């Protein structure tokens, strides 16, 4: 009896380990893909003039979109912010289409009507990023209202930065969501700067999570550079929201490892902060953990990175071949049937 018991417990343990290893590989794939696509955009295509306009990357923050979006169920709806590219990949939007979007081509999600991360696809359950910061928060409340109205068990995932929480729309949206007990998970990437503005000039409270109390909303502080921590916290938050208990906020502490955008050298950020946070790179940390836990060997990791590079090479080539939009289509689709 005892022996049987021990065997099944071992088996269960082995199975759990297997699942964690599998999850770790998924994390690594999406985080690396986001890093590589964004590097290519910011450091190559932008400098070559093949990508024009604003470029905002989430370097150093990849654990947040990846750890959270991998918790989402198919009927959940994602409302990413501008440093959450991996949400699109996890929802099945290819690197090819994302690159075509950045290059203003017809294969981009907006067919050249908008650029960079300002895209969405309701078929993939991703609401377009709204350029006006925090405007997405009331929209998330409406999405959650609709999910409940339609009798679905889905949750809206609402992403934003620390700076966005200063806007009135943020407060109106969170308040409506909490009053109505709507199924929303609010995910803040607190990367400590909003453009050039440091956190203490953005809010008088120490943490974004402190704002939750004003709305009677459970709010947790999470290590945003630890993808497993983000994943576990998001599971708790989504379970809470899915159970009909109302919204739940995660404040993922992280750091923006770049300027605000490709044209910003971030002279206003003390060098030591980049150095300090550079040691906490979420991809490096994940790889170390995978090696320590024997979920992978160095060769496996190198092979995974090489595969990602090859995928991005292909995506860039695809985007480069994708046609430009025809100016004759300029007037189309302002209204239905036009």
């Amino acid at each position, binding site marked *: 009896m005892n022996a049987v018991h021990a065997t099944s417990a071992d088996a269960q343990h082995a199975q759990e380990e297997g699942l964690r290893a599998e999850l770790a590989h998924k994390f690594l794939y999406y985080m690396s893909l986001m890093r590589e696509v964004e590097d290519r955009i910011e450091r190559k295509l932008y400098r070559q003039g093949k990508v024009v306009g604003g470029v905002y990357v989430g370097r150093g923050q990849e654990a947040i979109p990846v750890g959270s979006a991998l918790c989402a169920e198919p009927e959940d*709806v994602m409302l990413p912010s501008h440093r959450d590219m991996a949400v699109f990949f996890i929802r099945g939007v290819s690197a090819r289409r994302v690159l075509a979007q950045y290059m203003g081509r017809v294969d981009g999600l907006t067919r050249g*009507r908008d650029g960079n991360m300002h895209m969405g696809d309701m078929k993939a359950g991703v609401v377009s990023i709204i350029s*006006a910061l925090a405007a997405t928060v009331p929209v998330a409340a409406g*999405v959650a*209202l609709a999910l409940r109205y339609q009798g679905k068990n889905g949750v809206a995932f609402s992403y934003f930065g620390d700076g966005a929480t200063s806007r009135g729309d943020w407060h109106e949206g969170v308040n409506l969501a909490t009053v109505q007990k709507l199924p929303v998970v609010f995910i803040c990437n607190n990367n400590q700067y909003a453009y050039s503005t440091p956190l203490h000039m953005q809010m008088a409270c120490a943490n974004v999570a402190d704002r939750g109390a004003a709305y009677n909303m459970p709010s947790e502080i999470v290590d945003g550079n630890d993808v497993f921590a983000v994943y576990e916290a998001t599971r708790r938050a989504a379970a809470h929201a899915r159970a009909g208990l109302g919204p739940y906020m995660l404040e993922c502490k992280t750091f923006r490892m770049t300027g605000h955008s490709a044209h910003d050298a971030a002279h206003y950020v003390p060098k030591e902060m980049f150095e300090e946070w550079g040691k906490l790179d979420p991809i490096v940390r994940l790889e170390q953990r995978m090696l320590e836990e024997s979920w992978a060997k160095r060769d496996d990791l190198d092979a995974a990175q090489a595969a990602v590079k090859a995928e991005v090479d292909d995506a860039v080539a695809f985007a480069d071949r994708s046609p430009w939009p025809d100016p004759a289509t300029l007037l189309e689709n302002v209204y239905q049937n036009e």
Partner: protein
Amino acid sequence: MPSTTYLEAIREGLWEEMERDPNVFCIGEDIAEYGGAFKVTAGFLERFGTRRVVDTPISEAAIAGAAIGAGLMGLRPVAEMQFADFISCGFDQLVNFAAKCRYRWNAPVPIVVRAPSGGGIHGGPFHSQNPEMWFVRTPGLKVVCPATAYDAKGLIKAAIRDNDPVIFFEHKGLYRRIKDELPEEDYTVPIGKAKVVREGRDLSIVTYGAMVWTALEVADRLAAEEGASVEVVDLRTLMPLDRDTVCASARKTGKVLLVHEDTRTGGMAGELAATINEGAFEYLDGPILRVTAPDTPIPFSPPLEEAFLPNADKVLDKARWLYRY
């Protein structure tokens, strides 16, 4: 015997659409138990419950944003602004997001935002404005301004069934002032179609909203005074604008007077004048004139408000001058 007021017509249209389509729901401030500031949704809570009559905090951005979110999910929300003036608090959601979704990422936003607008009720600068032009010049939004009970009902139904965002301006001064005999059966009024509400040969007055009634009064008075035959065109929808009907009337009468309650600069009259210039210049027998409110906030005190608002006397003066020209 006309029996249904403009307000009841909107209420009936809304009610019937909610009966017809389970995806239609209302969202706004004080609309459930209280029935809305003007009582347009009185009785809706009892019939449709809190699921479909959603009271919100005082949060116009959240009302607009939540309506958009629900619309993206396939529902057909009808959002109420307590007064059109406060739509500015939800402005960004409407002009920057809702208006651009279809064009940018092919996502329809089938929402209606109801906005009680207009002066003549001593509401003062914050409760009397005509903010339609804020939205008319935002491609992607449709803007509707019914003048009659019949059109109010037909247009609210059309707006709810429309797959684009519609801003629905209800003139507060008309709510209980005018009535129509409405058909028993279901009907809609097409968005984007103006209507010649009175045929004439000598002069066209092109207008919308409450000023349609002013124009009709002027048509009667000018006929009595001078034997003039005045045509009155009710735009009904400001965006998309029915340029064909406007130009056809201009070509027919050769003289056009443009009238609106909204202020002058950047008002609809400017766009109409340009449209007529482009589409009927060869047919004109006189200058295109306009009667509008002046470029000031709308004042409170009755003599000031009266001086501000266009009325039949002011319109008649211009109409007579143009007729004799």
